[in-house]
């Protein structure tokens, strides 16, 4: 199993930054998954990002806010 998965796009300058960094370290133990922007694959990725990253953080902050509000 690779150390991690890097999702990006072949035309993305942001993805290139990460690949250049890994190349400088001669680090190859990772899986590179290119998403096709023209097929809208990044939208699936974005949805997944909202579900896995933002929603839990929002719920957490909302809970804190709610508990403060009720005290």
């Amino acid at each position, binding site marked *: 199993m690779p150390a991690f998965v890097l999702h990006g796009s072949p035309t993305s300058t942001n993805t290139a930054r990460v690949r250049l*960094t890994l190349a400088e370290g001669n680090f190859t133990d990772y899986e590179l998954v290119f998403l096709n922007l023209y097929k809208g694959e990044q939208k699936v990725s974005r949805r997944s990002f909202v579900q896995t990253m933002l929603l839990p953080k929002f719920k957490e902050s909302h809970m804190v806010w709610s508990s403060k509000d009720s005290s």
Partner: protein
Amino acid sequence: MPTVTFPDGFTLYESRAICKYLATKYSIPLLPPSSDAEATASFDEAQSVEMLYFAEPVTKIAFEKFVKKFKGLPPDEKVVTDSLQALETYFDAAENLLQKRSYMAGESFTLVDIYYIPLMQRLFAVGSGELITSHKAVNAWYDRCVSRPAIQKVLAADKEAAAAAGGKK
């Protein structure tokens, strides 16, 4: 994009944060030693300069001349002109800096130099490479960066992939 996802579920987005994390985690020698407060401060300063005074106008130009082209839209020439002007001012300042030091954050090649490379390439791609080549010290610094074997390897692979993709169309 991009994002990195680890088997334990740890996920990170934002390219600069990813680069910094990976360099730290895998001991890639692209960061100043954390014990060196001055070198770390110079690194942070150079990173802020890159984001605010370089990446922002280049991204605007790339959007107007690159992304809009694919969408079949005309570029907003005022945005392009203003951004080119901002970059000219920026490169004049960078020229002064690079006459005194070898790399953006000091005498060593760091992540900050890597941050520049893809957008410098984009500047050449949209026909604004003269902004770089007309500044002697900036041009020499860029040559030092892209002459590094690891960097050359990635750029050559990307060029090959782009040519193959172009051939398929």
